[in-house]
């Protein structure tokens, strides 16, 4: 005996290893009698996804796939809505119109009645037929207070299903723009399964083994991935002439952008919807990675980044001051220096390029602003902000010093660099702005409760209508907690009335929409309740090593959005997947 310690440690090590090996599977796999994993077994079928039949995506999920509940549009597993559950319509941002999906057609039979005709021959993945009752049931779930589309029932008065393929919605007040948004956003759930679920289960249920109408079915998941398998009996193959080629779609949970980059370079990832700071180098270098545009800005635009001032605080409650601040921001420097041209500077209205037709160029020409430090100084002087104590920074009109804090979450490196540029620009014009980086949760609390000076925000995505954009800017009433819209706490009754008027304009009345938009843009540029900075990209890096025919600005490639982001599968994301072709048949 040489060493007593090692002698009894070795069996412990061995036992520890064996125990770990037996349990490391992650998902509880019931495997009776499988205590000897070391025994060589033939490669089991279904043990692995064949590379040439599998699409690997990432960039959407930041936590484990915790639920498959389509009501939880914000944290259900990637693909729950879009791959499994489908909506009545899709929206095509390129053509700017709705595409019938589960619906055959939809139309306003009179000013307050909307009728949907459903497609024939659609079945749920458990074999039961899809009918008008399912649609009625889904929208009626909104009567529950905690269901996210509960407010629909403020202006929706009733739903009828006169026959199996017709659904008629009657409104007390028709909000046409919001309604279009709802019919391409709400996942239809099967009545025969969801009926009888209590409010708690509807909102918080995990909904294991989701039964949907979609092109994919649940396969498996673990804490760092979710896998979907193709539904061979999907209705769209015959009725939409779409046939997605990947047999499996595996969406990988993000741990960090570095890991996503590593996987992409190893060809283990086909579609990365992460923000990768050096994406321009990836495209120009010989890595086999492409983006939508082969040249700047490389990406489609997905949302606008705004500088949001707290309009309840002095001096940010003064529109003239806000305009001077807007004029002091060198957006070009952010776009080139911070982003390497991955993003585009925003137009003075901030409306996304997809909404260009609603931008009134006459109004922008007359009231728009552009970066000009000297002009910003003049504007400040004209508005009565003077540097009384000679420190180079202007003071409030009453002589008290101005010290504004501009915040973004710590760790958001691109935004952190961007606000350093903004603060420097403001200081050059004589406005004392300091960049600060609180923890994300602290920022959310400050932002929602109005205890901030300046914050950057981009939480409004592209949609069917500039209505959603103006709603974000102008919504009233301002409440103690502003959770999603009007963080600036800007109050303007007239503007909010116009926004509601826009909502009540029919979506095919483009001229009417333009007219209201133009008035809102004038208010926006006069008042500057938020300051548009740049258009954030629809981050998307693709590898063509296994799948080709990715959307691109070049040639005959599809023009749809190459993304798996939440709520984007209905905005062209699914169409992008469906047009993929295998590289090696």
């Amino acid at each position: 005996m040489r060493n007593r310690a090692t002698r009894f440690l070795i069996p412990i090590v061995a036992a520890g290893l064996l125990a770990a090996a037996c349990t490391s599977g992650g998902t509880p796999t019931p495997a009776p009698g499988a205590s000897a994993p070391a025994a060589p077994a033939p490669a089991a079928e279904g043990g692995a996804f064949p590379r040439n039949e599998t699409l690997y995506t990432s960039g959407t999920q930041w936590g484990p796939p915790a639920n498959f509940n389509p009501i939880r549009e914000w944290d259900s597993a990637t693909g729950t809505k879009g791959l499994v559950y489908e909506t009545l319509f899709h929206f095509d941002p390129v053509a700017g119109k709705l595409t019938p999906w589960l619906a055959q057609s939809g139309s306003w039979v009179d000013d307050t009645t909307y009728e949907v005709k459903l497609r024939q021959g659609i079945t749920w993945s458990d074999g039961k037929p899809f009918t008008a009752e399912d649609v009625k049931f889904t929208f009626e779930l909104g009567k529950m207070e905690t269901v996210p589309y509960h407010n629909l029932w403020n202006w929706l008065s009733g739903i009828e299903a006169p026959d199996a393929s017709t659904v008629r919605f009657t409104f007390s007040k028709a909000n046409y723009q919001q309604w279009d948004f709802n019919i391409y956003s709400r996942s239809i759930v099967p009545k025969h399964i969801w009926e009888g679920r209590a409010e708690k289960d509807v909102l918080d249920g995990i909904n294991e083994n989701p039964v949907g109408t979609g092109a994919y079915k649940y396969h498996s998941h673990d804490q760092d991935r979710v896998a979907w398998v193709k539904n061979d009996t999907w209705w769209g193959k015959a009725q939409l002439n779409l046939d997605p080629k990947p047999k499996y779609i595996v969406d990988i949970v993000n741990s960090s952008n570095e890991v996503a980059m590593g996987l992409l370079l190893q060809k283990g990832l086909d579609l990365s919807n992460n923000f990768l700071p050096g994406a321009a180098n990836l495209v120009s270098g010989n890595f086999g990675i492409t983006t939508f545009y082969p040249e700047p800005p490389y990406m489609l635009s997905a949302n606008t980044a705004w500088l949001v001032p707290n309009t309840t605080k002095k001096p940010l409650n003064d529109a003239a001051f806000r305009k001077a601040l807007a004029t002091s921001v060198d957006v070009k420097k952010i776009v080139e220096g911070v982003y390497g041209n991955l993003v585009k500077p925003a137009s003075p209205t901030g409306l996304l390029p997809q909404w260009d037709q609603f931008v009134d160029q006459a109004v922008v020409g007359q009231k728009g602003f552009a970066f000009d430090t000297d002009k910003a100084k003049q504007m400040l002087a004209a508005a009565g902000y003077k540097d009384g104590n000679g420190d180079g920074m202007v003071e409030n009109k009453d002589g008290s010093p101005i010290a504004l804090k501009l915040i973004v979450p710590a760790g958001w490196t691109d935004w952190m660099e961007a606000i350093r540029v903004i603060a420097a620009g403001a200081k050059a014009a004589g406005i004392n702005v300091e960049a600060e980086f609180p923890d994300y949760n602290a920022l959310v609390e400050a932002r929602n409760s109005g205890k901030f000076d300046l914050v950057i925000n981009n939480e409004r995505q592209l949609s069917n209508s500039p209505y959603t954009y103006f709603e974000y800017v102008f919504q009233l009433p301002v409440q103690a907690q502003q959770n999603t819209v009007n963080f600036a706490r800007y109050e303007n009754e007239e503007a909010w009335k116009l926004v509601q008027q826009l909502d009540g304009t029919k979506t095919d009345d483009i001229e009417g929409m333009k007219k209201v938009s133009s008035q809102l843009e004038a208010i926006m540029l006069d008042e500057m309740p938020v300051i548009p900075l740049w258009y954030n990209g629809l981050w998307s890096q693709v590898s063509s090593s296994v799948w080709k025919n990715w959307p691109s600005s070049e040639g005959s490639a599809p023009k749809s959005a190459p993304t798996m982001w939440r709520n984007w599968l209905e905005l062209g994301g699914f169409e992008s997947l469906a047009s993929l072709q295998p590289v090696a048949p």
Partner: protein
Amino acid sequence: MRRYFGRKLLIYGLTFFMAVTVNWLVPRLMPGDPVASMLARARVAQPEAQEALRVYYNNLFGFDLPWWQQYLNSWGSLFRGDFGISLWAFPTPVADLLTRAVPYSLALLIPSILLSWVVGNRLGALAARRKVLDNTVLPVSYVLTATPYLWLAALMAWGFGVVWGVFPVAGGYSFSMTPSFTWDFFVDLAWHWLLPFSSLFLVALGGWAIGMRNVIIYELESDYANYMSALGAPQKLIRRYAFRNAVLPQITGLALQLGVLVAGALVTEIVFSYPGLGSLILAAIQNKDFFLLQGAFLFIVLGVLIANFIIDVVYVIVDPRTRVGMAGAAA
């Protein structure tokens, strides 16, 4: 003997109580409201719906109660084995998340701690006797032990994963696999395990080797060794005695190092996005997930306490003097 373990258990009990209290308190001192950030992630557009959800979740998680009641409730649910529901991976119970992550963490920790200790001690003992080994093992060990876990892990992930592409950079097993009891899956699992394990193993190895070398040299020059040598005892026998004496401080060192090793493992997991407790803790902190953070720390505290207790027991077994001492005290 009973008094010895009784005292130890009392200390462990107190430590446990303090740890649970601190675990409960610290996340709540972080700025920000967890329900608010959960709802911010939800991006529910309508203010009415937001308010309804806020009230509902505050009630569900018990944040609407006074703090002392929340604290007492947390002890109550702890004794019922209920860790609560994760805010980050809502509505997954924290216990589920932990049971899925703990095997990965243990699979890294147990082998790397024990193997590095055993191999490090042997290496150090060998180095103490051979000049050539002493000149090679010692400097390498110094470099290794001074290396931060994080740095070595990042270097290995970059070198073996990205540059040479021979090892995976992320995950517990390939994204192309589903868990099954097949040889392929087992190999894949081991393949993903090897890099994080090696980085932990190597850093810990250096420290043990240096410690052992120094103690052995001290022991070989001690009176009993010289006396045995003078009596003509074979060198091999003297070394064996020296080794057995030298192991004792190393065992104490193991108990002291456990916390550091666990912390190192957590960081290593994050670098390799290995799906263990470390990745969970990071996510819990970023998302203000009180319950997950409490649960994960509780696991670690319990683990370290149990390991310390085992080391106490082992110490009594390997060092006869403690037993004699205790028998004397009891008599």
